[in-house]
């Protein structure tokens, strides 16, 4: 039996209304992502790739079309349900790392599990394991301000994966790193996709980053080009 795609978007649209102004960020895109895929969304600034990423990551609701993740329709969910989806099925990696500055690296990594109600000891154990996996085991007791950009992004990746999500969403993950660190992080993401089978949806404007993906979707003016 043919497996259903992990993520399916059908004429997905998003329009922002601010006062009298209406901005259409997404103008009805349709695509699907299979489990284990590594898909890159590529396009210039303002093309709608971040908006599409936000919708796929259950951060926001579309204003048109449908979006399903693991057979669940995200487009009709209320805030609490979307939150649960993010907690259980989605991992995020951001351009600016976005680790919580008040928590140690260990606590940052463990956070999604703790929010999900996992026992602290078990969450800690997983965090340690993942930290070792991404190469920052020696930084667990440090705070984000005390480690390098590359290390912060690795920690963010570990955080994004600790709860074994179905989908990893990455928005310009190398955008704030120098070329060496950027290459290392990209290599890590590829490795995780290969070894753990994590489905990855990555947004970038850089060709070399997009080239790491198995499939590239080009966007322009809210549509696939």
């Amino acid at each position, binding site marked *: 039996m043919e497996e259903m795609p992990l993520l399916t978007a059908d004429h997905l649209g998003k329009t922002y209304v601010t006062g009298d102004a209406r901005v259409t960020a997404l103008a009805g895109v349709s695509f699907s992502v299979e489990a284990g895929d590594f898909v890159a969304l590529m396009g210039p600034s303002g093309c709608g790739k971040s908006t599409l990423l936000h919708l796929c990551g259950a951060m926001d609701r579309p204003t048109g079309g449908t979006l399903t993740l693991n057979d669940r329709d995200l487009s009709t969910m209320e*805030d*609490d349900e979307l939150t649960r989806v993010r907690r259980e099925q989605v991992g995020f990696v951001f351009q600016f790392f*976005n680790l919580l500055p008040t928590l140690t690296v260990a606590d940052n990594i463990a956070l999604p599990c703790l929010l999900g109600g996992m026992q602290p000891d078990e969450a800690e154990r997983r965090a340690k394991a993942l930290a070792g996996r991404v190469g920052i085991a020696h930084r667990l007791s440090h705070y984000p301000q005390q480690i390098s950009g590359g290390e912060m992004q690795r920690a963010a990746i570990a955080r994004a994966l600790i*709860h074994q999500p179905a989908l990893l969403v990455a928005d310009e993950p190398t955008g704030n790193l120098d070329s060496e660190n950027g290459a290392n992080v990209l290599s890590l993401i590829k490795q995780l996709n290969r070894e753990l089978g994590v489905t990855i949806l990555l947004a970038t404007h850089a060709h070399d980053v997009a080239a790491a993906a198995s499939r590239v979707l080009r966007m322009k003016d809210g549509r696939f080009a």
Partner: protein
Amino acid sequence: MKRAFAHARGRGRLFRQFVLRPLINEKVRTVTTVLGVSLGIAVVIAIQLTNASSVRGFETALETVAGKTAVEIIGSGTGVDERLLPQLGWLREHGIVSPLIEGAAALVGGDEQSVSRRRLEAVKILGIDILRDQPFRDYNLLEIDRPGSDGSSRRSTEEVNTQAFLQLLTSPQAVVITEKLSTRRNYPPGSELRLMIGDRVLRFVVRGVLKNEGPARVLDGNFILMDIAAAQLAFDRLGRVDRLDVLLPDGADLQASVDAIGARLPDGLFAQRTGRRGEQVETMLAAFHTNLTALSWIALIVGLFLVYNTVTISVVARRQEIGTLRALGLSRHKVLALFLGEAAALAVAGIAIGLGLARVLADTAVSLTSSTVSTLYIAAVAAPPDMTMGHVWTAMAIGLPLSLIAAAIPALEASRVPPTAAMRGHDTLDMRVRFKPAPLVVAAVFLIVAYGLAQLPPVGRRPVFGYVSSFAIVIGAAFLVPAIMYGLAKLGRLVLRRRLGVEGLLAHANLTAAIPRLSISVAALSVSLAMMVAIAVMIGSFRETVVYWVGQTLQADLFIGPGIRPTVGSEQTVSEDVIQTLGRHPQVAALDRFRNLDMVYNGNLAVLGGGSYDVVLEQGSLLFKSPANAREEMRAAIGQDAVIVSEPFSNRYAKRDGDTIDIPTPQGTRPFRIAAVYFDYASDRGVVVMDRGTFRKYFGELAPNGVAAYLKPGADPERVRSEMLEMLDEGHRAFIYSNRTLRTEILAVFDSTFAITYALEIIAIAVAMLGVAGTLLTLVLERRRELSLLRLTGADRRQVRRMVIIEAALIGAVSQGIGLVVGFALSMVLIYVINVQSFGWTIQFHVPLAFLVQASIAVVIATSIAGIYPARRAAQLVLSHEE
């Protein structure tokens, strides 16, 4: 000129758009801050008005009754012996002289036995020689009673000359009352009026009604005029008058006249300016007033803290806007001015509302304090005076500069925001937790200074150094707060994590990172709570001491007193008839008569009393402070020129057992040796007690103010009391308290004394709670990016709300913890320094554990509730991983 005007217009527009508009939009924050400031201002002004009312009532009564009197000649507590009057003819060289009797009575209209003595309607009575008194005071009759030839009453409004006025008052039962009293209580001319004077109910006939002028205005019309002879009879002061009033000719030098008169007066008589009595009362009330004023300032300081909070929120929320303005060319000074302007706007609004609230609060404060003032000090408390421009200027002078000082730190922070803050991601707040040792040194210095100041003596009977010491403790503790919070953060990490889950972990992490920001909030709340703890410990200790003292000293089974409680300027006695009647009850074993007089000692009002030393020693009803063999010393003092003094007297005048004090008597000032010092919490005025024999030797046989009755073993005090009341005839009214009832009454007075303290504390804590809400809101706005990330990572709204409420509860718990420690330190200063120097009492330290536990729980709950609004705001933040 045009350019300057254009600049000013531009700045005004910027102020309106950048400061005023957000204040109007952020209604909750603005209203909270304005409310906090207004409460603080209202409390300070209300207490000023209240303090003025308690003295004003007495002084107004004094001035109204004094009329044109310039000099008063008084005796040594017992008035002026009439036998001295022929020797005082030379007073006519100085001016006109008028003798008078001045006293208080209670209106009798129903069953007064069931009414607490404190709630009887009091009237002031003046007994005058109408022929001699007319130049002194304005008596304008509205209506008189002209009895017809058949004895019937006929009311007349015709003009009355002096002779006719004199004829109105020829009968000992004739009185003239005021128009207000006549109308209010329905006493028209010709009607009968009954008054309770001491323990006697006397009947009078209203012969005239005075217009509402001159002395008729005193006590809001509760004034009665009678002939001096009738007054002497009514008040049982045959053979003496209360004082001689002297009216000087125009242009006479007042002080020179006082000195000249005083130099020629015989022993036992003194001359003083009219109004000196008011000054003495003001001095007597000074400590009470100063304490209230100090308390009121706490509410203001906490209210000003809200200004700090609001401006901080403003700065934090608009860092990017400020950065943009700076990038566009606005100077640092102008940014500073904008935010100071915000503070000024909040302060002006708060002051305006506060002045309106002040009058309402003053009325409440007067009603809370009037019971204390009228019970312990003086009989008359006026309504608060009207607010004047002076009060408005005071409010502006206090509120505006302090608000600007409060806003200085965040305004300076705003002025330092760089233009790059306009660019996203380029301006991040330093979240590193760094411990700095310097504040510990500052704290140590303040605490050492506080200790040193607490050792210093009072200044003019005011514990000035005590208050400064308390202030130093508070400042020192505030500097310790960051270190305490760092320490608690380290200790609390594991506990919070394990006990309160991920929300506890996050709350702990957030608060730890925010310690630099939080310290001021926690310090402000801790100060309020510390004052609450300090006052609770002081009151608890005081109450326990009074309970113990009452238990030890109130040994008599019954206490018999006159109809009105005696206070300054109001002599009330129990008649010999009543004493003899009640003494005949078969269950009475012994009676102890005691008599108190107002005494001026070192320019202050003290109490001189006479009591039976042997009865007191027999019954063991005094707690001695010193010497060790005080009982023997007191026994040896029977019949001697020796006295025992109360602890407040001893502390106030630095007199110990063995010292000698000079006491004014009708026979002149005489030295008396202090045999012993005893504890006394009934009054802070300072009491000197002579044995009855010695008292009689110098002051004559005077009717007692009260009688203590000791019953035979096995007697039922309540039953004896009821039987005694039945033994009294229609013409006598006495208040008889059983030991248990009197103890309850004493504690009721005690509790009502501190009612205003509790009220002020509640206001201060309420304002501090508003501060907690404001602080949390600041933190929420500061962390909106982190909160958004938290939601992105999978935290639902409930978890975010719970986290913020845990933060609020932790702030409350930490503040209460610090408040407890600082409060205990402050309570030491209150009990061992301020109270002793203000009132002269020794209080035994006692911790009201149950209250402190309940209060601590209440604080944590209250701060958690204060966190609800910020929690809701945090949970409603829009999801974004970008700034």
